[in-house]
Every structure is written in structure tokens, then in C-alpha cells.
């Protein structure tokens, strides 16, 4: 590893100089050094991650589904979703023309599944972003401020944790209505508490480390401590948690859609299954209509979970020994 030479204090740019081992253009401002270190950490992390079978498998699956979702307009036509334009055979099993069969209106299940991936993934991701924003903020503020702020926020968090998520979701959705936006909000409202707990625990452990106390003794402001010291150390945990939250968010969306709380204007894997079940696909034996979207859900959730586990293993060396 190249040795970084001592740097002058202050951030005024000066001439770059050769390193003690003769390297060119050694970074010499604290900021540049920090970014170089972060970049190195990322490349190091990637080289470890690459060797993790479970993590790579998950990643491949996600890339494939991501590609399908993004390329949906290219690989299939959205007119296939229009019930008025459907002209395929009703409830036909898989065939060459309709690889995943047709639904009760004659639409191709394959087309619907491809387009459904967009909504399912998008809702999952958006709900996750909202969850992480709320959960991480609450967790950081509670963990950092401590005392009564912490106690109050944790009481609220615990309260939300106690309520069964589906009960809350049902109640909220039945009042607020049904749209993609509301689904995203409802999922976020039911998911943020566990993220808040995880983030808070990590903040508490970081807060105790000597370098934080040292920085504060040097006169660092709260803002500086949080953004420059706490956040970078909490970030890996947040990231690992995010991956697992996406999995749960996708599952939640499908369940809410299945129960009829989804957005009726958009096709997602959950709504496909809702239509299928309501149309009696189970007793009619139209298994293709029910199996395809479900398998996609399982694969995507599995992929996110495997990536999340891989992340966990890498961050937590003790787990690796298992």
C-alpha cells in the first residue's frame, strides 16, 4: 500500500509533489485524501463482494430483472395490457405464441408480467427511499441527541412497531384511497420503525468511539460531527438495511395489491395475481397465470435478500466464519 506522506494543514491548494516512493500526483488536501480513501474502500469492498457466491447470484438476478423492467417498451408492447385490444385465446396454457399463457381476457401473461415488473420494482424502490429517509433521520437524531429526544422518538417508534403492519396499511389505505403514491406512503409508514431502530443502534455505537469525543473536544459542531463522522460510519449499515427493506417493500406491495388496495390503473405483479385469483384461476386450473408473477416476486425478493446477506457477511466478519 502506498504510504501517504504528511500533508500541510489548511486547504489552500499548493503544488502537487511526488510521494516518498516516487508516485505522481499524490493528493494533498484532507478532502482529496478522504475521497481517495473512500474510492479505495469501494474497490476493496467490490473485490471481496465478487468472491461471495450468494451475493453475486443475487446481483445477476437483479440486473436481469432491472434490464427487463427498463427495456419493457422495447421487448414487448404496452398495448398488450389493454383489455379492449386483447385478442388471444381465453385462459390458454403456455404455447409458442404465448409462452406464459393468457389470462381471462385473452391478454398475454408474459406481456403483463414484463410490464408488471416496472410497477412492482418502482413502488418497492420508492417506498424504500421514503422509508430510509424517515427511518434514518429518526434513528440518527434519536441516537445522536440522546436523553429525552431519544426516549420520545423511541416510544413513538416502538408504538409503530407494535401495530401489525397490514392492519395499519388496510386502515390507512381504506381512508386515503388507492393510488401508487398512497401505496408508497403506506408501505413507508409501516416500514420505517425497524430501520430507525437499526440506525439508532449503530449511531449509539459510533458515538462512543474515541474519535467522536476527540472531534468534539476540538470544537466540532454537531452538524460537522454528524455529517463528517457519524454518517460515514453509519452508512454501511444503512446500505445493508436498505437492501433488505426493498425486499420487504416489494412483498408488501404485492400483498396490498392482492387484497385490492393497489392502484387499479397500473399493472403490477400483485395486481396480476389479484385479477387471477378473483377470476377463479385456482379452481379453473389456470396455473400459468398464477405461477409466473409469483415466481418473479420470489426471485426478486430472494435476490435482494441474498445481496443483503452478502453485505452483512462482509461488514460483519464474525458472520463470515459461519
Amino acid at each position, binding site marked *: 500500500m502506498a504510504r501517504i506522506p504528511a500533508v500541510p494543514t489548511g486547504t489552500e491548494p499548493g503544488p502537487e509533489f511526488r510521494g516518498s516512493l516516487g508516485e505522481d500526483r499524490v493528493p494533498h488536501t484532507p478532502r482529496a485524501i478522504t475521497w481517495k480513501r473512500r474510492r479505495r474502500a469501494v474497490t476493496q469492498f467490490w473485490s471481496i463482494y465478487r468472491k461471495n457466491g450468494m451475493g453475486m447470484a443475487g446481483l445477476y438476478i437483479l440486473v436481469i430483472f432491472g434490464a427487463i423492467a427498463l427495456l419493457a417498451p422495447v421487448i414487448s408492447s404496452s398495448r398488450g395490457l389493454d383489455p379492449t385490444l386483447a385478442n388471444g385465446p381465453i385462459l390458454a396454457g403456455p404455447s409458442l405464441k404465448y409462452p406464459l399463457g393468457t389470462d381471462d381476457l385473452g391478454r398475454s401473461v408474459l406481456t403483463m408480467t414484463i410490464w408488471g415488473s416496472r410497477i412492482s420494482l418502482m413502488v418497492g424502490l420508492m417506498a424504500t427511499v421514503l422509508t430510509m429517509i424517515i427511518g434514518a433521520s429518526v434513528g440518527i437524531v434519536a441516537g445522536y441527541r440522546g436523553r429525552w429526544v431519544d426516549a420520545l422518538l423511541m416510544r413513538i417508534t*416502538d*408504538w409503530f*412497531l*407494535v*401495530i*401489525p*403492519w*397490514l*392492519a*395499519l396499511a*388496510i*386502515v390507512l389505505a*381504506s*381512508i386515503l384511497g388507492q393510488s401508487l403514491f398512497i401505496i408508497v406512503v403506506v408501505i413507508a409508514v409501516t416500514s420505517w420503525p425497524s430501520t430507525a431502530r437499526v440506525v439508532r443502534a449503530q449511531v449509539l455505537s459510533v458515538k462512543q468511539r474515541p474519535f467522536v469525543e476527540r472531534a468534539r473536544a476540538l470544537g466540532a459542531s454537531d452538524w460537522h460531527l454528524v455529517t463528517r463522522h457519524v454518517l460515514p460510519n453509519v452508512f454501511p449499515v444503512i446500505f445493508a438495511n436498505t437492501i433488505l427493506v426493498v*425486499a420487504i417493500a416489494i*412483498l408488501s406491495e*404485492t*400483498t396490498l395489491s*392482492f*387484497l*385490492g*388496495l393497489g392502484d387499479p390503473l397500473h399493472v403490477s405483479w400483485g395486481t396480476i*395475481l389479484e385479477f387471477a*385469483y378473483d377470476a377463479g384461476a*385456482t*379452481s379453473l*386450473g389456470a*396455473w400459468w397465470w*398464477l*405461477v409466473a408473477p*409469483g415466481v418473479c*416476486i*420470489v*426471485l426478486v*425478493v*430472494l435476490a435482494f*435478500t*441474498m445481496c443483503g446477506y452478502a453485505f452483512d457477511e462482509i461488514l460483519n466478519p464474525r*458472520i463470515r466464519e*459461519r
Partner: protein
Amino acid sequence: MKTRTYLLQKIGQVVLTMFFILLFNFLLFRVLPGNPAVLLARAAGARLTKADQLQLIRDLGLDKPLIGQFFTYIGDTLRGNLGKSTIVYPGQSVTSIFSEFLRPTLILVGISTILSTIFGVLMGIHAGWRRGSRFDLSSMGFSLVLYAMPEWWLGILLLIFFAVTLGLFPTGGLVSVTQNYTGFGHFVDLLNHLFLPCLTLTLAFLGEYYLLMRSSLLDVLGEEYITLARAKGLREKLVLWRHAVRNALLPTVTLVALNFGYVLAGAITVETVYSYPGLGKLTFDALSAKDFPLLQGMFLFFSLAVIIANLIADLLYAYLDPRVREA
């Protein structure tokens, strides 16, 4: 006595939590945009004149100040009056509807929780003890896949395969509609109808208990007191059960409680899939019909159930882990 203070603390927390749930429930439906009378009426499918609306508002006590309404609400709830269903069973009191549908759900959730915990824990112990074995790896994969499935989808698959295709089990309901069984026949009929929903719910959560038990056991096996137990000359089985499992079981107890909310959510969806006449199916019907009193009651009831489950788990944990009782 430390245990008594602990108990009182816990119960105090429960009361406080329930209070906020009642508050939330109350505000949720009172703070709706729009005239509550119109909303209720619209939901009931009727159209009211202005005078009728005012009369309804006065009847429901909606014209009184909010605080007054709230206390009336609490009083009513404590007396078991949760209002009347508007659409699903119009006119019938919510509490009486609940009591009709409580037992099937209790049986379903109770049995599946017991089964998934027992099997999950046992499998987890076996996998952790024999780490790296074929059993370990295959059960890991199996559990991960189960975890990734929506439980109701698993239910649908099982339904298609066992009930529709193979015809081994009925496709839904609580009892057979064609035959009228009595006595032992009735009991078997019940079991027949219970089997698939119960299997679904058990499999749905088995994976999580398995994974947690396995990792918890692996953590414990690295501790020094396990080496000490061996050094004392204990047989491996004793080391495992008396020392390792006894400590590794603790996080699982917490998980069962934390999971209970998800188990209830599973009950809602699985009962719907199997048309199993319990509180879950009732919730689905209430939701589809926008029967607000019923939904409010459901929200209250499920929250209370989770709180009680958590309380039991806390007490059980305190019994199992003496360190917790200190503080």
C-alpha cells in the same frame, strides 16, 4: 422484588400503548375529509337529505366537541361497544361479529405458530450443530425461498396442487357444505379444512425461526462456557441442550413476539385465499366493503393481540434470562 417492578412496568407500558392506539383509531376516522355523515351514508349506499344528515350527526354524537367524543369513545370501547357494522353484517354489533369469527382464527394462528416455532427451532438447532452438512445447506436454501414468498401465494400454490389437482383436500371454508357431519366425523371434517391453511401459515414462518435459531446457536457455540462444559466431561448432547440451546433460544422468543404482527397479517391473507371464515376473512370483507366500524374494530383487536403477545414474550424472556430482571 425485582420481578414485581418489572411486571408492573410492563403492564404500565401496555396501558399507555393501548391508549395511543385508541387515540389513533378515534382520530383516524374523525379527521376524514368531508362530512362524516355523508361518508357513512354513502358507504351504506343511501342518499340523505340535509335534514337527515343533521339528524344522523346528532344521533352519532358527532356534533359534540372532539374531546367529549373521545371520552365517549373510550367509555364505549371499555364496555365492549365497538359500534355496529354498516355493510357486511348491517346492524349487528361489531363485538358480537368478532366473537363469532374469533375461534377459527385462534385455532389457525395458534396451531400454526406452535408448529412453525417447534419445527423451525428444531431444524435450526440441527443445522447449527451440524454446520456445513447437506442438511444445513439445503434447509438454508429452502428457508430463504420460503421467506421470499408471499404467504398467500404459497397458499394458492398448495391449493392448486393439493385441492384442485389432487383433490386431497377441500378448496376452502371451515366445514363441508355438502355433508352434515356430527361428532367425530365433524372433527375430522374440521381438520380436513384446517390442514392446508395451517400448512401454509406454518411454512410461511418456519424459515425465519430456523434461520434465527441457527445463527443464534452458532453464536453461542463460540462462547467459552461451551468449551468449559465439554472440559467438565459432559456428553455432547448435554452440552448442546443444557448449555447451548438454553442460551441460543433467547433471541427466538423475542422473534416470535416481534413476528406476531406478521403472523396476523398472514392470517388475513391466507384466510382470504381459503375462504376460511375467521377474523382475517372478515377483515377482507370489511375492507372490500369499506365497512368502517368493522375496520376500526379489527385494527383495535389486532393491535391488542400483538401487544399481549409481546407482553407474554417479555415475561417469558425475563423468566429465561436472569440478566434482564436487573434493570
